[in-house]
């Protein structure tokens, strides 16, 4: 008997210009104790499907087909029936625990309210039960955690609370909507382990939604691939990975970064003068407010970077990895003069002791590409204006059309505004802007993390191509270990503001990492399983 069954389901959204198809003839079923991984890129309709199952659709939605839970149709259920089913028989775990928890209620209140609502417990009973749930999802000091507010808990702890409330009423089915995407690799790994444990223990039917194929291959029994609202392929994980039948699945699988598949061949010239030498660079955050300074008090400063030293050869790709808050971006910001720093940077033999020394020449040579093209491209400027800025500043003779061609965008895009481009195209414009001044070092700060895998693969390919043509060195900041292992010559591992290990990519495969944190990082992200193409 299937717990969740979706049959011939179609979904359209009414727009001023007519109906837009979001989902088309979806058929899927999840049995008790089974995990179905639903994979798709952004806009494929996977979240729409989750909302449809939860019966949380906007009024402009139009549906066909059927969705049923243990034989009971959800589409014909009344609002009060649905309210009794939600949280009780179908649970949901959301992507980002920092937005899915109410900031002004304690974690305990938000967990206990589910128990009070669905299991008819009194406040006191619900609180005690909630505490037990917190212990069960592996939270230390559950009693104290119950009284905390979301901002007083870490991302991993918060996601455990969300998971606890999803499992609280022993539902038959739980939807997991990218539950680890907003978390650090190490934390994500722990949450996945918790998921596997609870899943085995409760035999709940799980729908695990993710854009990450590699991840789904590890957690799911069955996998369904969603592409533009249609299920293009569905089957057991092994079958789909070993013998993908659909073209799109094959493309998706090929785009997943594999550490053994090196994109960067060759090495930077040995013995050459280093391009950049960073010497004991430290960054401190937190300034003493004026009034406190008058009172003679000093505020505790937070170290963003602690005495980081490293060097980059001309044409080298140095990967920088570490969890969020480890100081990766702080280093990038210091090198581009966006942060004050102590210590020194030597660039092309010239000593840069502070932001004052970063003259026009330095800024031309060192460029940065940011994570979110949406916030780094001015929405009111056309691509032409965005790209002409570095040209007038640094006097390159390149033409805008050439710049666009370099990043494989049609010349006609010069007249477009950023909102008329896709995420990947926007990031290409940002890359073109960085390369306009013909820099010697480009800092890439998580530039692919907001992109879909297939788009990421294309952007990375572009970066490799540009590196080959221009001999540019990269500081490639990422949290994706598999990706960085494809690309970098050396990898710098950062942890809590310090550089804990700097290893050559060849040493990584032969002798392995030395620092325990590096090992922990690598263990958290096993390479994706092999598939036959």
């Amino acid at each position, binding site marked *: 008997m299937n717990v969740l069954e979706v049959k011939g389901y179609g979904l359209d959204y009414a727009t001023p210009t007519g109906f837009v198809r979001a989902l088309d003839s979806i058929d899927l079923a999840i049995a008790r104790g089974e995990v179905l991984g639903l994979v798709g890129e952004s806009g494929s309709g996977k979240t729409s499907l989750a909302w449809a199952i*939860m019966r*949380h659709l906007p009024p402009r939605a139009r549906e066909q087909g059927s969705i049923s839970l243990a034989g009971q149709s959800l589409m014909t259920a009344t609002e009060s029936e649905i*309210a*009794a*089913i*939600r*949280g*009780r028989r179908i649970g*949901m775990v*959301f992507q*980002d625990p920092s*937005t*899915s*928890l*109410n*900031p*002004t*209620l304690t974690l305990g209140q*938000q967990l206990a*309210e*589910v128990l009070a*609502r*669905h299991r008819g417990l009194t406040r006191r009973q619900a609180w005690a039960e909630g505490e037990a749930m917190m212990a069960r999802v592996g939270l230390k000091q559950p009693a104290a955690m119950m009284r905390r*507010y979301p*901002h007083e808990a870490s991302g991993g702890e918060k996601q455990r609370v*969300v998971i606890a*409330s999803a499992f609280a009423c022993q539902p038959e089915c739980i939807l997991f909507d990218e539950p680890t995407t907003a978390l650090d690799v190490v934390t994500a790994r722990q949450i996945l382990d918790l998921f596997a444990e609870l899943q085995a223990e409760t035999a709940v039917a799980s729908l695990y939604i993710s854009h990450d194929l590699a991840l789904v291959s590890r957690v799911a029994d069955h996998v369904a691939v969603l592409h533009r609202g249609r299920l293009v392929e569905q089957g057991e994980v092994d079958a789909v990975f070993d013998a993908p039948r659909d073209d799109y699945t094959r493309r998706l699988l090929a785009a997943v970064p594999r550490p053994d598949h090196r994109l960067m061949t060759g090495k930077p010239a040995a013995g050459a003068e280093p391009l950049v030498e960073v010497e004991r660079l430290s960054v401190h955050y937190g300034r003493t407010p004026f*009034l406190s300074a008058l009172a003679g008090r000093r505020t505790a400063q937070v170290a963003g970077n602690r005495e980081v030293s490293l060097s980059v050869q001309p044409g080298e790709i140095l990967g920088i990895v570490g969890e969020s808050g480890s100081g990766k971006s702080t280093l990038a910001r210091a090198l581009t003069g966006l942060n004050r720093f102590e210590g020194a940077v030597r660039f092309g033999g010239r000593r840069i002791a502070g932001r004052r020394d970063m003259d026009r020449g330095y800024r031309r040579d060192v460029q940065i590409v940011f994570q979110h093209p949406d916030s780094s491209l001015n929405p009111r400027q056309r691509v032409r204006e965005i790209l002409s800025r570095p040209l007038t500043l640094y006097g390159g003779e390149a033409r805008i059309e050439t710049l666009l061609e370099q990043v494989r965008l049609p010349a006609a895009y010069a007249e477009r505004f950023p909102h008329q481009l896709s995420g990947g195209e926007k990031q290409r414009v940002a890359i073109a802007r960085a390369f306009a001044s013909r820099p010697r070092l480009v800092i890439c700060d998580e530039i692919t993390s907001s992109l879909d895998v297939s788009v990421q693969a294309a952007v990375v390919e572009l970066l490799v191509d540009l590196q080959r043509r221009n001999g540019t060195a990269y500081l490639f900041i990422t949290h994706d270990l598999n990706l960085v292992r494809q690309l970098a010559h050396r990898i710098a591992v950062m942890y809590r503001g310090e550089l804990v290990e700097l290893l050559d990519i060849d040493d990584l495969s032969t002798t392995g990492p030395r620092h325990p944190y590096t090992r922990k990082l690598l263990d958290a992200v096993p390479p994706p399983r092999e598939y036959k193409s």
Partner: protein
Amino acid sequence: MSPSYFVKRLALIVYTLFVVSLVVFGITQVLPADAAVMLLGENATPDALAAIRDKLGLDQPVWVQYGHWLWGVLQGDFGVSLRTGQPVAPVLLEALGRSLTLAVLTIALMLVLALPLGIVAALRRGKLADLLVSIVSYVGVSLPEFVTATLIVLVLADWLQLLPATGFVPLTENFWDGLAHLALPVLTVSVILIAHVSRMVRSELVDVLHTDYVRAARLKGLSRRSVLFHHALHNALLPTITIVALDVGYLLGGVIVVEEIFALPGIGRHLIVAIQTRDLPSIQAGALIMAATYSVVNFMADLAYAWIDKRIQYG
């Protein structure tokens, strides 16, 4: 919130009031008025003028006068009215009491009406109720209070003869009669505030209803009611606290106009008379008291904010 923050904020209020006192004193100094002439009249003899100047210390340097005045203020002595010859403080306090009654009733009426209006508009977004609230709000915000006052007097006092148009009866003397006399001024001032605050509540609530945590609460199976009252309203009302506190500034200004229109002997009316008669001590005291009210209300709003939103850590 740390006790040191509390002390720091209090110190900041004292500092603000000090600056206000300097400004107010400075302005009254440059006003074209001679206090001695004001007191004794145009026909006073030069000897009498000299004597009174000596008595009031008007021939001393400005900063000495300021020092004397400030020292008096710190002891609760705001000087003697040039118009009546009576001490300023008791008269002013009585007027302040009347104005505060007006202000408190206005804010109470505003909260009773603006919150439900805003909530209904947000919940029925795009529907008729929302449209009606929006229209009424826009009209309310765009009419100046002397126009609203005139309309209200015309309808309620003149045509329908329901309520008295002018005058004041203390609530302690005759509660219902007092309330009847306050009704029109309260209505007039609250129109703009209700319009303003209900729009604020509406837009904040609409934002909060679209947050992930409200959706998460719905998907936990909580009822609409419980989601609204436990999850949404709490967060939506936070910015409203700040707005209400800022509106008190408007209220203080509005009170002056409204008290004049309805002949309500509050602090606003008192100030206008003081300015017309160049009664310097009364002007100084009135302005200072208004500034103090404003500072204290905003301080209280900050305290309330931190009490409700535990993320706020004033340090």
